[in-house]
């Protein structure tokens, strides 16, 4: 990841690459365009630390809890710096990731009808179906410079296996120029996997880093549960600029990827 990159760190509630997010903060990356359907705590932290100049998203809340306070502070008050944003619906972003993986320049879908986002977001356009004449919405494909995702496991060859709620991770990686996958563990061979498992072959993945617990406070199906109490705690910590900064200093700047295994220890 380089300063100024367009970055997609995906995972739909499940398998959010939080440990990788902390590493981006430690490396002091700036001017990133952050792309994610649900910014979640991972982007709340990056935004609050001034890593991003732009956000592309479709639902910016703390799931089941309420607001993302660092995101709101950036949008409402420009702290710690101004944050431009491009806002979509989930359907639009899911289609845009799909188009990115397919190597298409844009996605076409039946959407945004009567929705005011189409008025305020100039990236939302429309096209007339050449077969039926129906007007359909279009959005640009998501083709990030770097995709970062978390998965359950990699095998010794470097193939990556996702299980459970698989979100848009496959599309994000296949649509990106470069990719990093953090995994819970590396095994010699995948065992007991059905023929239709979601696997990214080694030759589609840029790099793999083993970070047990690396999705915490999100979860890894089959390994550990979502830490709902953390999501609620984040509401308090992130509400205030000072308590947020203190938390990041203690747990991110003063921490490392090795800390995550302890977060998920039963």
């Amino acid at each position: 990841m380089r300063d100024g990159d367009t970055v997609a760190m995906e995972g739909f509630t499940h398998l959010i690459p939080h440990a990788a997010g902390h590493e981006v903060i430690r490396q002091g990356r700036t001017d990133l365009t952050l792309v994610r359907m649900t910014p979640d705590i991972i982007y709340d932290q990056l935004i609050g630390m001034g890593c991003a100049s732009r956000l592309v998203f479709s639902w910016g809340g703390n799931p089941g809890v309420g607001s993302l306070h660092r995101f709101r502070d950036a949008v409402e008050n420009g702290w710690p710096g101004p944050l431009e944003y491009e806002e979509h619906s989930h359907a639009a972003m899911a289609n845009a990731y799909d188009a990115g993986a397919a190597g298409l320049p844009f996605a076409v879908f039946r959407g945004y009808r009567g929705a005011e986002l189409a008025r305020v977001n100039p990236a939302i356009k429309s096209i007339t179906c050449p077969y039926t004449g129906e007007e359909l919405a279009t959005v640009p494909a998501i083709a990030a410079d770097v995709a970062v995702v978390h998965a359950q496991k990699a095998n010794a060859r470097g193939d990556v296996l996702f299980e459970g709620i698989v979100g848009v991770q496959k599309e994000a990686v296949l649509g990106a120029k470069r990719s990093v996958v953090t995994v819970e563990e590396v095994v010699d061979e995948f065992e007991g996997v059905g023929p239709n498992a979601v696997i990214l072959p080694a030759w589609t993945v840029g790099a793999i880093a083993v970070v047990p617990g690396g999705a915490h406070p999100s979860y890894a199906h089959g390994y550990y549960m979502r830490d709902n109490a953390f999501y609620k705690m984040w509401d308090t910590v992130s509400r205030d600029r000072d308590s947020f900064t203190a938390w990041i200093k203690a747990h991110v700047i003063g921490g490392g990827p090795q800390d995550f295994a302890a977060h998920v220890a039963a």
Partner: protein
Amino acid sequence: MVDFTLAEMMSVTAARAVKNDDVCFVGIGMPSEACNLARLTHAPDLTLIYESGTLETRPTVLPLSIGDGELCETALTTVSVPEMFRYWLQGGRITVGFLGAAQLDRFGNINTTVVGDYADPKVRLPGGGGAPEIATSCGEIFIVMRQTKRGFVEEIDFVTSLGHGRGPGDRARLGVTTKGPTRLMTDLCIMEPDPECLEFVVTSIHPGVSRAEIAENTGWAVRFAPQVAETPEPTQVELDALRDLKARTAAAHRVLEKGEAAE
């Protein structure tokens, strides 16, 4: 007479609105509570679909987030998010979509995006998530939300998701062929669109609630249908199922949740 709260009345009312053969697109919070209550009472075969990709999910406790592991573990199958929105929602497979709102107008148009101006918002809300396309792709829409003057407003600040627009013909003009909001269920009453002008009018009042109370909690000049029913109070079976579900959920999440956030 059974003892119940208006919040329970709202959940029970919303649960009663779904049929056993419905396929519901479910959001987190009140919609999820209502749909699972329906499944545990009169609609055991109800199909629940969450936008995280879980098809035919049968959670024993309510999820805190749209992608809790519980949803996936109890689902028939789990598909990717692009497939969910393309094949299942856009493909017209969903009969009922449940939505909530921060602001709602008399035509069932929904705002979950901003309070104030979009470019310079007073309050930045989470945004639309799946709602803009749920509102137009599902066969019909049920809206569930607490009735307050702040939420039920004359003019919403931003149209996140289309209801009936400004009245008859607006959905069709935008190329939308689905019914849109057909029922609005609150903690005070049930509203349905007036067949002529599509404005929500009160068609059933919950036990113990007055017309004045409904008017006081509505930011537009609320109208009542010529025939207004009294909503049947919750049965003991409904209340037991709801309270058991909430108790199981609280124990599982350890902390009592308010479940106010959508999507």
